[in-house]
């Protein structure tokens, strides 16, 4: 289970992805991903907000994750 990181999320973690299968407890839901990130990298708490995408769609906290999902952290967007 791999987590993709973009923008400031990449700067906070220091790399562009995290292999979650290396973590002690695999996250079960989108909410778990957020808990994991803010615990391991408290700088995420300083952001205006951040969203999680599962298979390139915005995902709500209750979404349950599958092993082959593509998960991405979406910090505040600023295109245009």
């Amino acid at each position, binding site marked *: 289970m791999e987590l*993709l990181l*973009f*923008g*400031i999320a990449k*700067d906070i973690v220091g790399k562009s992805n995290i292999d979650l299968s290396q973590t002690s407890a695999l996250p079960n839901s989108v909410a778990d991903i957020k808990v994991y990130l803010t615990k391991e990298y408290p700088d995420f708490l*300083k*952001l*205006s907000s951040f969203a999680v*995408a599962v298979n*390139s*769609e*915005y995902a709500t906290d209750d979404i349950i994750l599958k092993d082959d999902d593509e998960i*991405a952290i*979406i*910090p*505040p*967007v*600023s*295109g*245009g």
Partner: protein
Amino acid sequence: MQKTIIEIVDNLNVDGVYKELTDPKSGGICVFVGTVRDFTNNEEVVSLEFETYKAMALKEMQKIVDQAMVKWNLNKVVMRHAVGVKEVEEPVVIIGVSSGHRDACFAACRFMIDTLKETVPIWKKEVFKNKTVWVSAHP
């Protein structure tokens, strides 16, 4: 000519967009081009750097275009965003809309750039002389 063009590219060619939008059923074409401004809050900007989660960005752009096509009954739409390093005066995004009457193309063009800025996963880093800032990241 296809009705909608949605792309993320390294370099934007603004001049070509008019040809992509002409249509015998159109009386109005509205094009918005976002460009790099020289100053942000009185600080001189060296460049902007754009990155994207491309697969998701294209899906979100498609949603915006689909919504606008239906709501305003548009003839043609172009939505094209640049990534990479962009310097002052360079274009970073083009939204082009072609419709029967001008009300529709103005309203749809405005809706599309506003919504793109809210939902499409593209990130902009402002590069100043002595620092860099991810726009909108912090409160």
